[in-house]
């Protein structure tokens, strides 16, 4: 009976930092280059080569420190984690161990209707490894060291997560924050953000069980699948009278199962020790403070602003803040026009996002069309054109087919807002409607809708509905 069981999960997230060069060498930090194109003598572990720290990585770590509520440590030490692996040219990974650059942070995530605080133990800088390609040849592996030395920030949470959904929410929040502060591109497919899931199970209220670590998951889907499979696997073992072995697991994406990595004759012993090629990193308060302004507004700051200053609906505001580029687009439109933010927001999350999705576009690609968009929104909110006409023109504006005012003219979509003309139409429409007029006077609101529809039809849809409404009411009440 799995409903007596609960899972306890801690996450180690590796985020590739968006620097130009690598953590300890000046090779390009670039995805998708030709094999071994971005490799220098340091990256390939040639004899006598020495690391020199990239301050850009320190800056990004500090920004992350602010965004994730960390204590930013003025003293941190790079150590060597010693193990043999073909993708690891030096025979060790330079990482931080005893003295990480960030410690004791947290973020709040959504959990059901509530917020839950997830504590983060630490985050440290380290080098990424290279890649082996196994599927070119049945007998050989091919080694590409391009990724060697790419800066990673490993973010290690406390075991505060207790469901796959919470894990996904935590990962998306992390991803959102890291992208907001521009330290990670968040591209999970390319491996820019990868998670190791540490999972154990226990009967509700009991002590922590033995955990297994599922390595290197790079999509939300796989994370969810792996967690659900591993949860059940551990329960089955215990229910069958067995014991959980502390193991490192791989997730097989084709079967959706986890399995223990080839068992080692001896357990790992990484023999961490301070890297004698590097000296401790000392940061001054001044250096740390200087970086703060570059953190910018975080999603929560924006949410508060949108609710308090712009009176957006919470759901709409949340959609806009998911990604910084959405928020940027939104704020650009506000600053460039005097259309009501709430009105802009409705159009943005509605027709504009739909257009982006349909056409597979980047949100950023609309940045140079904001003036046209707000011009169009202005026409709608000023009742120059109807909502419906707006919807018709928007795609054309977004495709760059013309300026909104021109399009309105060309397509003949301008609304009739001349009250003299409308009065005439309305008077004609009321002819022979004595029975309905009596109904209206008897209190039936439904009849009003009927009259508005009839009048609109008579204007071929171009009549300004508000004005029609107003004149109608005047006429009806007089009768």
């Amino acid at each position, binding site marked *: 009976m799995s409903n007596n069981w609960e899972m306890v999960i801690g996450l180690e997230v590796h985020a590739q930092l968006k620097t130009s060069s690598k953590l300890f060498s000046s090779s390009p930090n670039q995805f998708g280059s030709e094999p071994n194109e971005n490799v220098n003598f340091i990256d390939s572990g040639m*004899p006598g080569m020495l690391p020199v720290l990239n301050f850009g990585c320190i800056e990004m770590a500090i920004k992350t420190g602010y965004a994730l509520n960390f204590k930013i440590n003025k003293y941190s030490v790079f150590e060597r984690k010693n193990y043999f692996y073909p993708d690891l040219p030096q025979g*060790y990974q330079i990482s931080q161990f005893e003295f990480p650059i960030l410690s004791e942070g947290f973020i709040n995530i959504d959990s059901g209707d509530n917020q839950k605080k997830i504590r983060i133990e630490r985050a440290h800088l380290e080098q990424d490894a290279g890649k082996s390609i196994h599927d070119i040849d049945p007998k050989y592996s091919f080694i590409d060291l391009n990724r060697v030395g790419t800066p990673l920030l490993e973010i290690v949470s406390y075991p505060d997560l207790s469901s796959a959904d919470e894990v996904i929410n935590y990962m998306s929040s992390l991803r959102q924050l890291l992208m907001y502060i521009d330290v990670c591109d968040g591209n999970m497919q390319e491996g820019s953000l990868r998670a190791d899931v540490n999972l154990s199970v226990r009967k509700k209220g009991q002590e922590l069980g033995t955990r297994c670590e599922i390595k290197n998951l790079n999509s939300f889907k796989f994370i969810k699948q792996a967690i659900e499979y591993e949860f059940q696997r551990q329960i089955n073992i215990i229910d069958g009278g067995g014991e959980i072995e502390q193991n490192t697991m791989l997730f097989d994406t084709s079967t959706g199962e986890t399995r223990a990595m080839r068992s080692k004759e001896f357990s790992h012993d990484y023999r961490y020790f301070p890297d004698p090629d590097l000296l401790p990193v000392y940061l001054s308060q001044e250096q740390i403070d200087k970086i703060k302004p570059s953190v910018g507004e975080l999603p929560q700051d924006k949410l508060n602003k949108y609710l308090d200053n712009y009176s957006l609906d919470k759901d709409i505001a949340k959609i806009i803040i998911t990604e910084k580029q959405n928020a940027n687009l939104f704020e650009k439109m506000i600053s460039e026009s005097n259309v009501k933010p709430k009105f802009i927001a409705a159009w943005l999350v509605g027709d504009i996002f739909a257009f982006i999705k349909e056409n597979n576009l980047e949100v950023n690609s609309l940045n140079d069309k904001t003036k046209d968009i707000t011009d169009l929104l202005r026409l709608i909110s000023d009742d120059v054109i109807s909502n419906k006409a707006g919807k018709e023109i928007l795609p054309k504006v977004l495709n760059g087919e013309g300026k909104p005012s021109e399009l309105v003219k060309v397509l003949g979509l301008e609304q009739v807002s001349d009250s003299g003309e409308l009065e005439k139409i309305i008077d004609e429409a009321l002819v022979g409607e004595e029975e309905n007029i009596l109904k209206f006077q008897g209190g039936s609101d439904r009849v009003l809708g009927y009259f508005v529809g009839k009048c609109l039809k008579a204007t071929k849809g171009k009549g300004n509905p508000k004005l029609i409404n107003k004149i109608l009411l005047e006429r009806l009440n007089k009768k």
Partner: protein
Amino acid sequence: MKNSISQIKKALIEKKISVSELYDEYLAKAKSGNNNSFNLVIDRENNISSINDSQNRYDNGNPLPLDGIPLGIKDLFCTKGIRTTASSKILSNFIPNYESFVTQQLLNDGSIFIGKNNCDEFAMGSSNETSYFGPVINPWKNKNSQKDNLVPGGSSGGSAAAVAEGSCVASMGTDTGGSIRQPASLCGIVGLKPTFGSCSRWGIVAFASSLDQAGPLTNCVEDAAYILNSINKHDFNDSTSSNHQREDYLTDINNSLEKKIKIGIPSDYLEDVSEDILNQIDNTKQALSKHGIEFIDVEFKTTEYALSTYYILAPAEASSNLARYDGVRYGIREDGESLDDIYLNSRTKGFGDEVTRRILIGAYVLSAGYYDAYYRQAQKVRRLIKNDFQRILNDVDFILTPTTPNEAFKIGDKLDPISMYKNDIYTVPTSLAGLPGISIPSGLSKNGLPLGVQFIGNYFEEKTLLQLAALAEKELSFNE
């Protein structure tokens, strides 16, 4: 033919000899030498353009500081396009595509490389017997048993022997726990280990990164100053390189020291030493006392822990530094069914006994359960040793010690590693403290073998250290 660099430069300027003639003399010596002091002698063709350029500069009257000077280079410095082996089988086919910082400075200053000097494998040894290319023979013989081949000391044994035999004017060595000073002493030449952080480690095959330091082995103190002027520079690419202001070590080297100086002699270093060794200290003391230098007894509190500290820290760093030799990207690959086999076979067959031993020690002292007791404790004791030196250097300007506890011994004589390690008893503490030390010849033993004394100075005070050493050298010079 043991001319100093300034004498040679004078002869070149006065056209008594050409750069090419000079080079050929040393090249012939290097090629015909039978002390096994070179792992590789560079072909003449490879040096022709350097020789011509150098000659042109002499002809035009603007020679560089080391123009045309034939040098040996320990086979631990990566030299672009020239095989660099660290005297190990595992690197025996390695040709770097880069030039070490230090050797680049020497090339920039016009020197010409004769070849790569033999050394202990990965610089691990005190007798040059661990080299994959066989032991180096000390050019000196015991006058009471002329037939015996003696060790030159190590690990820069090939460098020391090459300078002593005259197959290069000077050689670049490296010193981790005494690897320049000890062989210099046993071969009767000068060896300088600068302050840690003076000369860049970039491009030197690493042994123990927090201790390795490049330095010259030369015929005289003045030559050491010539080389130091060239190589002692800040290098941004070595994070442990110091950016302090460097001095000109050559000017005023023969002037007497400005202030009245005090030299400490650590009494604890002289317990149980042989008469031969005591004589060296006495000679030096007498010679320098004439110049108004004051000697006082000092006592270290940490000497008995220095070797233990060193033989934990150096192997620990080495075990990690040598993890990159795996037969995948360069070096010798041994066959294997799987990649893991290739790793295991390449490393097991590629490293000699002493290197294997030190890798094992290193892995042990860093491993779970032993780290605190050994590695961390050794790092703490290292601080105590450093503090101990600073305490003494508050009272005195320099420290005088023997360089080695004994004269050169017979090849194959010391089989037990611990008795071998004890060879570095006087040089290791300085290395742990990161201080500069220079060994100069101070006299001959009863068997007619050279012995040296070591002067230790304060951090980055190589200038006065060299002045003192030059003064002592003048007084102590002995004839072969």
